[in-house]
């Protein structure tokens, strides 16, 4: 029995659209694309593929990104940001390690912000600088603007961290096709490269995050069965373990920010060297002219870090249990992330899974390559060999109930996209508003889960207590992002929702930041809007034409006329320069083809099942 997914529901567009995959890592970032059917990682002017995720702010507000920023690390630590991914979507209370960071934290609620000599910046803005650098690299390498990007995130990232990543991409002027989980991206790259089938575990230990995903690979379907991880565990923590040991060895208690940076860099160098050698000499000059000199043996290193290694095994166990599987069910273990080069990690993984892990693909590049493959597919560039990705929500979603307890509404590891409706009622006569607190996490106490947002429902028609029935629908899309809508059931009135994200930015913030970055050139914004609307219009016209070519028999003659007429108007307006008119015409065409689109879906599903029934008869 063959699963036929080769014929996509709707034919892709003809013109090739350039799409890229971006691995926005804690320590390194990469950009890749698919060129002539083959994925390839793009290089900078000097032939390097890894861009260090480091951003330096200068006094004149210009920034250095990557290697140029690294050069500032020791001399200007306050304005040089490393591992900023750890701060995405995080408040100050979430960060036990902040006392060690050399940054000046701004005193603001919500997501952390830093004071720099170029003003206050958020992790979202810093990440946007990295993304901009990669976007420019891609434009230079490919000679054309890019239509969109798939950006990877740790599978265990919660809603706030995902939203922050998406916001950073918007700020960098990237159209986000999709946020893709890093281990899933790796599985796509690995699965397609090795034609793998069966249940695989992807163990991804990067610079700052750890993910474990269990996936089932069957003919063109990548299905995540369970995922788990630790969003604050990675190679950085191994550096810190060595650093703490160095301080003890050298009898230093409180190094200044510059020294701390130098010692950390030395610690990391030694750690990386120990992947090849049995011992590593460490020499780190200090600002007072002295130097720390010592030798770290692999044995000592393994002892220093054994707890960190163990901390990765607990999530592995949980993921296996959630998937309802045991070790014997796992056909292969794929290692991803630079930190999996450490022998202690390879040994721990081999011991746990009772098989040697697979290291066929470059652990630095595999995530970016998977993202590029997916971006290419999403751009509509793939013809016949398409695949399906079914991913899951990593952490349960819940709402706060009486006594600070969480009531789970969506359990972790549910396949995306998904929706859950929940009814609420008023507890006071004439009550017209209520507030819902949404949290993410596995614990019973609200205070031990991550607060995502408070939703303020307004405009409930006044009734006696308990008579109103407000149905709140929680929708989680394929990116793992939550949106909420509400309607009063007895009157049908849509309640208005005001979202107060606990750690994120709201849409107005994003718009303001984008406009700020164009502050001195009003017409830039207009030009950009016009360009975007024209691209959008072209895309819509092409999609509609393709749909008509395929399924116009699903329409009556009258309906056909209406769609053609709307298409003609859109074509006409999009030759002009009025972006608002183009948008209006596009909306009108969208509206006019809603029913058509819906019929086409039904048709496509019926056809699919009919085809499958025939195959079942044959089998």
């Amino acid at each position, binding site marked *: 029995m063959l699963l036929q997914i080769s014929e996509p529901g709707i034919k892709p567009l003809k013109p090739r659209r350039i799409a890229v995959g971006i691995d926005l890592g804690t320590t390194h970032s990469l950009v890749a694309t698919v060129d002539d059917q083959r994925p390839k990682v793009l290089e900078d002017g000097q032939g390097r593929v890894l861009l260090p995720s480091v951003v330096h702010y200068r006094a004149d507000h210009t920034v250095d990104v990557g290697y140029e920023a690294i050069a500032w690390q020791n001399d200007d630590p306050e304005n040089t940001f490393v591992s900023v991914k750890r701060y995405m979507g995080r408040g100050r209370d979430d960060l036990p390690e902040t006392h060690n960071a050399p940054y000046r934290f701004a005193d603001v609620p919500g997501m952390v912000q830093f004071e720099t000599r170029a003003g206050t910046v958020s992790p979202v803005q810093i990440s946007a600088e990295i993304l901009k650098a990669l976007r420019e690299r891609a434009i230079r390498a490919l000679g054309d603007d890019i239509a969109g990007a798939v950006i990877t995130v740790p599978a265990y990232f919660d809603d706030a961290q995902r939203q922050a990543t998406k916001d950073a991409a918007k700020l960098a002027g990237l159209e986000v096709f999709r946020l893709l989980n890093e281990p899933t991206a790796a599985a796509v790259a690995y699965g397609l490269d090795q034609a793998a089938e069966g249940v695989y575990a992807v163990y991804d230990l990067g610079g700052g995050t750890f993910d474990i995903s269990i996936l089932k690979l069957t003919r*063109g*379907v990548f299905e995540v069965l369970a995922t788990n991880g630790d969003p604050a565990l990675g190679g950085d923590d191994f550096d810190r373990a060595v650093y703490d040991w160095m301080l003890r060895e050298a009898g230093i208690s409180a190094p200044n920010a510059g020294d701390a940076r130098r010692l950390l860099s030395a610690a990391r160098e030694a750690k990386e060297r120990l992947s090849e050698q049995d011992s590593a000499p460490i020499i780190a000059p200090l600002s007072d002219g002295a130097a720390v000199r010592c030798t770290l043996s692999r044995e000592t290193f393994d002892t220093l870090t054994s707890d960190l290694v163990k901390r990765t095994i*607990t999530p592995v166990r949980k993921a296996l249990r959630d998937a309802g599987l045991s070790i014997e069910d796992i056909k292969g273990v794929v290692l991803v992330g630079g930190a999996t080069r450490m022998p202690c990690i390879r040994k721990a993984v081999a011991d746990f899974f009772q098989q040697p892990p697979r290291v066929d693909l470059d652990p630095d590049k595999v995530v970016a390559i998977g993202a590029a493959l997916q971006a290419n597919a*999403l751009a509509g560039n793939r013809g016949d060999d398409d695949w399906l990705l079914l991913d899951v929500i990593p952490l349960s979603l819940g709402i706060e109930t009486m006594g600070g307890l969480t009531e789970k509404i969506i359990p972790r590891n549910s396949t995306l996209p998904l929706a859950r409706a929940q009814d609420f009622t008023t507890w006071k006569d004439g009550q017209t508003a209520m507030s819902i607190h949404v949290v993410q996490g596995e614990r019973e106490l609200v205070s031990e889960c991550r607060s995502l947002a408070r939703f303020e429902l307004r405009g409930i028609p006044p009734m006696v207590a308990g008579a109103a029935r407000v149905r709140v629908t929680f929708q989680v899309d*394929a990116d793992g992002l939550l949106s909420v809508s509400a309607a009063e059931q007895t009157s049908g009135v849509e309640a208005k929702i005001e979202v107060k994200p606990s750690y994120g930015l709201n849409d107005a913030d994003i718009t303001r930041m984008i406009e700020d970055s164009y502050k001195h050139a009003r017409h830039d914004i207009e030009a950009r809007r016009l360009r975007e609307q024209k691209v959008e219009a072209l895309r819509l016209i092409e999609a509609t034409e393709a749909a008509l070519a395929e399924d116009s028999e699903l329409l009556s003659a009258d309906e056909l006329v209406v769609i053609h007429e709307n298409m003609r108007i859109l074509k006409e307006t999009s030759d002009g320069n009025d972006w608002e008119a183009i948008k209006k015409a596009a909306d009108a065409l969208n*509206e006019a083809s*809603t029913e058509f689109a819906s019929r086409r879906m039904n048709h496509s599903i019926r056809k*699919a099942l009919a085809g*499958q029934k025939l195959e079942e008869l044959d089998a």
Partner: protein
Amino acid sequence: MTPEATRNYFELFQLPPSFQLDLDRLDRRYREIQARVHPDKAAHLSDTEKRLFLQWATLANEAYNTLKRPLDRARYLLRIHGVDTREEDNTAMPPEFLLEQIEWREELQAAVALKSLTALDGLAARLRKEMNSLLGSLATLLDVERRHPAAADVVRQLAFLEKLGRDIDQAQTELEE
């Protein structure tokens, strides 16, 4: 047929509405549908189509999960037959069943007090066996004898056991941390 108008999940997958279900077939049809309606397939399409794909894919997941999990499938079948399992307000259970529950709970508490993962694993395994035997009788009640009220009683008992399973799971998780 809009996603909202698709009332019957069995019809969606074109499978006969019975408790005993060809799960391989369900799997294949689910994937066949997702391959057509998943939002990834609409990334290059219009906003209207994007929204439609999202709705359909959400419905397909909901339908698949309902039919895949035996207890949800049973509830769903009973609802089709107009029987409400009334799990929130009907807690009347046979006394032997309640006694058993007390024993399960005591064992769970003992395992937690001992911090014994092995004991919890053993408990989880026994619970699975117990649930499987109840699911067997549910199949007879629903598909053969068509005794729906009796089936609703068994569903309520199974819901109790499922809750116990989740508590064991939670205890395992907390112990591992």
